[in-house]
């Protein structure tokens, strides 16, 4: 029987220096997938390659264990010795593979718990597999279910709630004070990378007026151009502070820039309008005492990190609930998979029965059509029809049971009992009770000539 499998490497098992060796570029994916399904005992395959994981999700050809060959294949593809990758690659088969795929899609296996980016990457990988022609019914169904599970986990648990990085936390804190950030103005002091990220987040939350100031005007201009802001001279800092609603500060200055003396003037000129100061510089740009002024809220990098940590702790709590959802859904998927494997047998059985019944029915109909029959004769034709069909259908199983090798006869009988819900008596009682039936089973009645 073919089964699902996963072979991969992720941030859990290997540092980026190792992961990057195994990474695939987008344009390599189709070729790799096709090579995998032609060269290896792999019927369906999907390859997801992101900065945090490189994983193959696939379905084996019947009876094969493809995890070993896929491990070797991945290493060889990247020109590495398979033995070198043995410890960092992991694999899952069957139900554990299903659980893994569902967990990954639900961002339970992400570096930042609940970070939904992986879902989009999986969807992209799935469509690439479709393009390569390597995704089939089982993998397709598995992925579709995984996307459904991810959506459930996202809406039913708190896994993606609360900002999980410093710059989104900065936006959240500003929203605590202002609510809607539409129309608010942001002052970016210093041109650090962190302030760029935070400014972008504020911009996308509606704060479209961004002013950048820096000791070196060139850098201010460059950053302003990058984030749709306006560069202003450093000497105007006090005026800029009076006009701003949110300040993001990340200069490399050794001494605080946002001093108590400065804020005494600034807050008065602002008439104590609320001002959120996000100080992500180390050493800090803002003197902590400026937070004592009415309407001024100062958050340094530690405060932001603290919120991130608290939010991640909440997410970890939610992960337990999410795990139960994954478990439940994986169980349902496996049930579907099991029924899938017997579907061809069921279909063949039904077709065989239908064929036998059709043939005999046609014979009887022809016979009835040939001439007028009295009701008694019609009755006889019907009875014979049913008897014939039953005999024909039971002929093969009966023979198979009688001619079974001794070590298998008991098993076959047991399976038949289960399938048809029989409870044969152990003594001679049923034999005596149904002699006619018994004789029938032992010796199928020869086809009688049709009544004319």
């Amino acid at each position, binding site marked *: 029987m073919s089964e699902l499998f996963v072979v991969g490497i992720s941030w859990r098992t290997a540092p980026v220096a190792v992961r990057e060796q195994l990474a695939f570029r987008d344009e390599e994916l189709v070729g790799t997938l096709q090579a995998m399904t032609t060269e290896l005992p792999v019927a369906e395959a999907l390859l997801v390659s992101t900065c945090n994981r490189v994983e193959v999700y696939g379905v084996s050809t019947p009876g094969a264990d493809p995890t070993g060959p896929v491990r070797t294949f991945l290493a060889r593809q990247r020109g590495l010795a398979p033995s070198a990758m043995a410890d960092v690659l992991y694999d899952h088969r069957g139900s554990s593979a299903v659980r893994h795929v569902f967990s990954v899609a639900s961002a339970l296996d992400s570096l930042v718990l609940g970070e939904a980016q992986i879902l989009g990457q999986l969807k992209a990988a799935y469509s690439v597999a479709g393009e390569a022609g390597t995704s089939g019914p089982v993998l397709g169904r598995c992925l579709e279910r995984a996307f459904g599970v991810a959506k459930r986990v996202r809406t039913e648990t708190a896994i993606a709630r609360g900002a999980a990085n410093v710059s989104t936390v900065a936006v959240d804190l500003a929203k605590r004070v*202002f609510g809607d950030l539409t129309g608010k103005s942001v002052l970016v002091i210093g041109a650090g990378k962190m302030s760029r990220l935070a400014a972008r987040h504020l911009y996308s939350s509606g704060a479209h007026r961004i002013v950048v100031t820096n000791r070196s005007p060139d850098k201010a201009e460059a950053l302003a151009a990058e984030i749709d802001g306006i560069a202003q001279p450093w000497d105007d800092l006090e005026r800029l502070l009076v006009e701003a609603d949110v300040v993001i500060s990340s200069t490399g200055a050794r001494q605080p820039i946002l001093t108590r003396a400065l804020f005494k003037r600034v807050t008065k000129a602002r008439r104590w309008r609320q001002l959120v100061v996000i100080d992500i510089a180390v050493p800090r740009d803002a003197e902590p005492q400026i937070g004592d002024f009415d309407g001024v809220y100062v958050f340094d990098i530690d405060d932001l990190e603290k919120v991130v940590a608290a939010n991640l702790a909440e997410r970890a709590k939610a992960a337990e609930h999410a795990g139960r959802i994954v478990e439940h859904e994986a169980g349902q998927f496996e049930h579907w998979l099991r029924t899938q494997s017997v579907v061809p047998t069921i279909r063949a059985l039904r077709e065989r029965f239908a064929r036998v019944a059709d043939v005999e029915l046609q014979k009887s109909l022809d016979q009835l059509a040939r001439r007028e029959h009295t009701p008694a004769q019609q009755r006889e034709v019907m009875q014979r029809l049913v008897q014939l069909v039953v005999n024909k259908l039971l002929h093969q199983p009966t023979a198979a049971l009688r001619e079974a090798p001794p070590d298998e006869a008991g098993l076959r009988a047991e399976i038949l009992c289960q399938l048809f819900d029989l409870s044969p008596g152990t003594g001679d009682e049923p034999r005596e009770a149904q002699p006619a039936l018994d004789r029938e089973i032992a010796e199928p009645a020869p086809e009688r000539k049709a009544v004319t």
Partner: protein
Amino acid sequence: MTPATERLLSVSASPAFWAAVVAYAAATAALLVVLAGHHKLRPLALVLVGIAFAAHGTDIGWRGTQHVHPAQSVREALGFLAFIITGGYLLASARYRLTVGGAAVMPVALVMLVVARLTPAGTAPEDLSTLGKIHISLATVGVGVFALASALSMIYLIEERALRRKRFDTVAFKDNGAPLEALDRLSHRLIWVGFPIFTVALVLGAIWVSKLGESLDRPEYPLAAVTWMFYAALLVVRQAYGWRGRRAARLTLAGFAAALLVLVIYLVRRMAGG
């Protein structure tokens, strides 16, 4: 006994009153459960507040059919005040998440309602003139609006404190309540609404007292004036000096404390039969 006395004492609590009491208590409990982290129960809590509001209104209406005017006495007015506060809270909740505020306001409304209905009526008040009724009605509405503004200011101070002290794990912070700026603005607007009403009530009250020929040396009269002065000052400093936030919130609460004191003195005097 004058007919008025008989009337006042004969009106017993209606079934709607008891329904309101139960709903207020249930709403308080539900809001506390929401605060404890069961956010899914928030709609249920608000529905309970709505039921309490409706039952309370029904009770007031029923008393109306028994010829008890909601502003007939300070005791009646207290129940009416609780009604206004609950209604205001419901309105504000439609826009903001005010779970902390609700958990504080609902028990207060409950206590006010119970005090208004179950305390002994004392001796019957003199038959009220129209002037007196208008005075009590306006004063009740004015104080009700101030009460709402004060509740918002209280929430402002709690949230502001959590934010300033960076207590990110406190209930006030996790509740994800209304933003500070909105609380401040809303409180300010409410005072703008309440102030003229309260002013008219005060003037009518003064005319009424002088008409009755009572002396003006009762402590509640200057206290009412102090309340008025607090809110007048608040409007002035907000407008002229740009006061807002923490200072404005504290001043709002101080003014309301004075208003409450006036109410308490009235009530105690009535119950003592003064």
